[in-house]
């Protein structure tokens, strides 16, 4: 069965681009428009991997990861930040709340897939 990926981003352009890249590679993708929507969708399903942006309305990426890590279902599921934020301070916060990795936009689709394969096969 195809692995499932949740992509959380308030930018429709980025969601389209990430979804297109992942679907082409055979993954099943669900989109969420902000952190709260991401949390709701994560709760109602079980995803193998989650991508999240940082700066979003209602709930940002770091808060989302914190909330997800408190849920037994997502304690060890890989969660990758995909964001324009590139400072070491932000990355440290990401690591502290339990992010699996940090990808800085703009992203290269081939590299994105390389990372996905590395973390979920």
């Amino acid at each position, binding site marked *: 069965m195809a692995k499932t990926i949740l992509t959380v981003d*308030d930018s*429709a*352009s*980025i969601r389209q*681009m990430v979804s297109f890249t992942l679907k082409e590679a055979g993954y099943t993708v669900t989109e969420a428009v902000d952190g709260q929507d991401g949390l709701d969708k994560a709760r109602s399903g079980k995803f193998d991997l989650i991508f999240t942006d940082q700066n979003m309305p209602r709930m940002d990426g770091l808060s989302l990861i914190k909330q997800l890590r408190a849920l037994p279902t997502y304690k060890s599921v890989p969660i990758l930040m995909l964001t324009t934020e590139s400072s070491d301070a932000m990355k440290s916060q990401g*690591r502290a709340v339990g992010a*699996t990795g940090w*990808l800085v936009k703009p992203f290269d689709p081939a*590299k994105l897939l390389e990372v996905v394969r590395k973390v979920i096969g």
Partner: protein
Amino acid sequence: MQHGFEEVLAPNLYYDRHFEMDAVKILPGEYYVSTREILMVTVLGSCVGACIRDRIRGIGGINHFMLPDDKREDNERFSRSMRYGDYAMEILINQLIKLGARRSNLEAKVFGGGNVLPGFKNHVVGERNAEFVIEYLTTEGIPVVARDLLGNYPRKVYFFPTSGRVLVKKLRSMHNDTIIERELSYSETLRRAKVEGEVELFS
């Protein structure tokens, strides 16, 4: 320019004697955002500039960018050059949101995309930039409330972010090649840059 492909906060602040107010000059590859009334000024040749503001809270910002000239795949929606355009726009929108703007309140005025650079493939650089910015804002659901795009001349744009007012001066004659030189240098920087962010796995 000192930076690579990264969009940077415009550092050129000055006092504009004509408008009698603080102002900031935005060069290619730069953006600026503010919660206060500061005049944002940029000169656009084939580049485009998006003036985006929260129409309720009066928080506004502007950018100045072009798509990298990617000869292999430049018209594909998910090509390297389009991804760079998405990034340039997202940087501006993120900064506005950080200042307290609401995505649902955003509106845009877009300018530039003139046919002013010599020697570029089919002379459609400006057209591509103009098409991109409109398509991007449509996808994002951000209404474009004013536009002045294309044509054969550069434009000087004055953006007053809290009120949203924009003045555009069409530069029918150029006294020197500064605009073209800056854009060519920016284009060359983008062409050489990898235009992709770092990847780091924590465990």
